[in-house]
């Protein structure tokens, strides 16, 4: 049985979470230096950004198996990787969900999905859910474009892949592509933050 005080505390905590501790506000902002990580890929090898010496930057995408929005974007994520890996910006996908809460996001299901869809990029498990809070990812899919400047990884874009989740052909603003095209020209991305509906990260 909950005592009134406990209930009050619970509500207070919920309120705090609602008002003050929005994870997005505590994560990276544009211009911040992103830290590297070492996470397990679906081929069971550990992947770090430091492994990619010649990369000019990265397209870090927090995504998962279970979220329909993530699934809707899978083909577009593969296309992004194919297009920009060659230009120095490979996709690194990270599943931020805790598989104990979201069973369809367990490691074996990740392996199956990566194989089925023929992912051309690493699909990493954020074991212990330690990396996504550092980035400030709150939903899937949630993109962070990093740009290597003086061997530091600078957060250059945060947000959505494009402006139409339900129909790739109707998307007429491709935020991630535009950001990287700007970076490739040596410019700062014109649009640095966008918002999108997504599945809240389960951790």
């Amino acid at each position, binding site marked *: 049985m909950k005592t009134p005080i406990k209930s009050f505390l619970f509500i207070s905590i919920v309120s705090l979470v609602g008002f003050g501790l929005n994870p997005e506000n505590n994560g990276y902002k544009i211009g911040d230096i992103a830290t590297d990580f070492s996470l397990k890929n679906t081929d069971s090898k550990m992947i770090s950004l430091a492994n990619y010496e010649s990369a000019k930057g990265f397209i870090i995408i927090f995504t998962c198996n279970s979220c329909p929005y993530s699934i809707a974007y899978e083909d577009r994520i593969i296309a992004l990787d194919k297009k920009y890996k060659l230009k120095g910006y490979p996709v690194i996908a990270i599943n931020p969900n805790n598989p104990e809460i979201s069973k369809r996001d367990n490691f074996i299901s990740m392996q199956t999905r990566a194989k089925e869809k023929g992912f051309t990029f690493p699909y990493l498990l954020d074991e212990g859910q330690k990396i996504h809070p550092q980035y400030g990812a709150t939903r899937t899919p949630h993109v962070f474009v990093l740009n290597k400047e003086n061997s530091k990884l600078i957060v250059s874009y945060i*947000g959505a892949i494009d402006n139409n989740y339900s129909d790739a052909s109707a998307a007429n603003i491709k935020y991630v592509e535009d950001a990287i095209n700007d970076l490739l020209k040596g410019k700062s991305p014109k649009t640095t933050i966008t*918002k999108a509906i997504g599945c809240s990260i389960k951790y």
Partner: protein
Amino acid sequence: MKKITVILIVSIIFTCCKTEGKSEETSTVEKIIEIKIESINYDGLELLLNKNDNKTYVINFWATWCKPCVEELPAFEQLQKNYDNKNVVVILVSLDFPNQLESRLIPFVMQHKIKSHVVLMVDADSNTWIPKVDKNWSGAIPATLIYNKNMRQFYEQSFTYKSLDSTLSNFLKTP
């Protein structure tokens, strides 16, 4: 704005017994239940977010595929039921895919016997409209906006009935 109506024909079969007890008659009555779910874009949503009357509006953003959203739906349904006569209106704004209105959303609403008002948000340009709902909303669901003439607060979180009820009570205090 597009309105789609699905008409469900429910056949209710009942037996009518005559008082004399000598003859029995079976008849079939067809009852028509209409489920209308309006598809809205941001202009339609804006109207729901800015009503200026004596009611308190509880606007919940959800989707049938969002597990924590579906888990908290009974709390919103209960709230609608308990505050029905107290000027509280619950509106469930579904963010299901527009092409799944008939295949997924309407069957879900029927199966779960949802009584609260449900609308389907079909505006895919979420970067434009999310900040207009609340500037701090990351876009993750579930999320809920509660407002009336005096107060307005956005919650990017899940609710239990208890936490929802007590949050709502802050809005219902007479100033």
